């Protein structure tokens, strides 16, 4: 339970970080808060040759309110975003989801972008990004690009980030007038990984529900303006399509039932918030 050996680079500029990733690529891992990477290192599930620490770059520590989005830099700790006074007004879904991340003692160090980089299928921030149609801003020595969250999460702890790319920020769309938002999660204990997590957006032109903890990545579906039995049927189809598996936390059947019941409750709450 001790990490294997690695070199440690303390990047002092963004160019430093890009250069290290360009040089070491797949052998390098970026470390920010370390709250997901350190367990991976200690259990030797990850054995990078080089760690690139990006927490000494002031330009990555910014939370910026853009026109229709919040841009959260890669150095922003979860506790800092939770304490950002504008959070609930600008994006209630993110404000509702963030207290579910780990524990206060984890959020104090863990970063928003770190959770996105780790891409755990039950993690809250990736789920919120998929529900809202957010994006991930990647940069390398050569180029900079924005990838839609739906295209970024590729599977279990896997993303479409290239080895030379740094996640520089995530882009979270802000609340829109006439939209309602809700987040619910079920786990055995608060702070545990979600068995099922639901994020719902009720828009004038229909409902969008995103589910975490079931498929190998957070998955969103537009459900139109269904209600009653038709909505139950659509949720049932969604639950089956997520291809739930049995594991030691819950059976596949139990997860499907949570998608149906917790999903329905989350949608109802989002619709109430809209009204």
């Amino acid at each position, binding site marked *: 339970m001790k*990490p294997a050996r690695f070199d*440690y680079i*303390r990047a002092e500029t963004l160019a430093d970080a890009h250069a*290290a990733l360009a040089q070491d690529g797949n052998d390098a891992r970026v470390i920010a808060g*370390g709250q997901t990477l350190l*367990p991976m290192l200690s259990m030797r599930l990850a054995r990078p040759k080089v*760690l690139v620490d990006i927490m000494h770059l002031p330009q990555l520590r910014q939370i910026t309110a853009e026109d229709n989005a919040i841009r959260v830099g890669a150095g922003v700790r979860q506790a800092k975003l939770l304490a950002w006074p504008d959070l609930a007004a600008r994006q209630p879904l993110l404000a509702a989801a963030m207290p579910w991340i780990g524990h206060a003692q*984890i959020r*104090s160090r863990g970063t928003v972008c770190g959770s996105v980089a780790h891409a755990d299928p039950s993690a809250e921030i990736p789920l919120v990004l998929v529900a809202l149609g957010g994006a991930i801003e990647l940069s390398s020595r050569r180029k900079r690009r924005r990838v839609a969250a739906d295209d970024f999460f590729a599977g279990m702890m896997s993303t479409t980030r290239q080895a030379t790319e740094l996640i520089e920020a995530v882009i979270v769309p802000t609340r829109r007038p006439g939209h309602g938002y809700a987040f619910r999660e079920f786990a055995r204990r608060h702070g545990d990984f979600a068995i099922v997590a639901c994020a719902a957006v009720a828009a004038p032109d229909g409902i969008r529900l995103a589910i975490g903890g079931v498929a190998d990545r957070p998955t969103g579906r537009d459900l139109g303006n269904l209600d009653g039995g038709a909505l139950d049927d659509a949720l049932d189809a969604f639950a089956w399509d997520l291809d739930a598996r049995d594991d030691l936390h819950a059976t596949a059947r139990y997860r499907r039932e949570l998608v149906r019941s917790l999903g329905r409750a989350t949608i109802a709450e989002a619709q109430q918030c809209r009204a």
Partner: protein
Amino acid sequence: MPRLSADTRHLVRLVVNGRAVEAHAEPRMLLTDFLRHELGMTGTHVGCEHGVCGACTVDIDGVPARACLTLAVQADGATIRTVEGLAPEAGRLSVLQDAFRRHHALQCGFCTAGILMSLDHYLRIHPTPTEPDLRNFLGGHLCRCTGYVPILAAALDAAKRLREASHA
């Protein structure tokens, strides 16, 4: 840019419990092991070593965090507070520690250092905590002896005494 080689031990400087200290660490050394093995401060306990149990919780730059999820080299320059820093003087317990003793809020004591560090921070920010708040906050710690009830009782009692002391 500084690149610390894997095979070499590097100087790490910290302020621990108000005292400037320094020792050497390989890049892969966890802050838990640095505190215990290099600085000899064994009050911080090592439980699960992957951030779940909370035994190693210390205060890093003013906030409770897992020492096992922090590399010593990451913490270079940080201000750390550990359980050794809670007692106001040798032979005298802090209000919170004393409440733990009176309420039997520990048996084996393995988890206690981490819980004390979390609660010490929490009670400073939330002088009037409710029991549900405390339960939620204590979710970040595992205790296999007490069943948590005496820990909650001790925390509520300590909060009350701290409030009384601040009004006195």
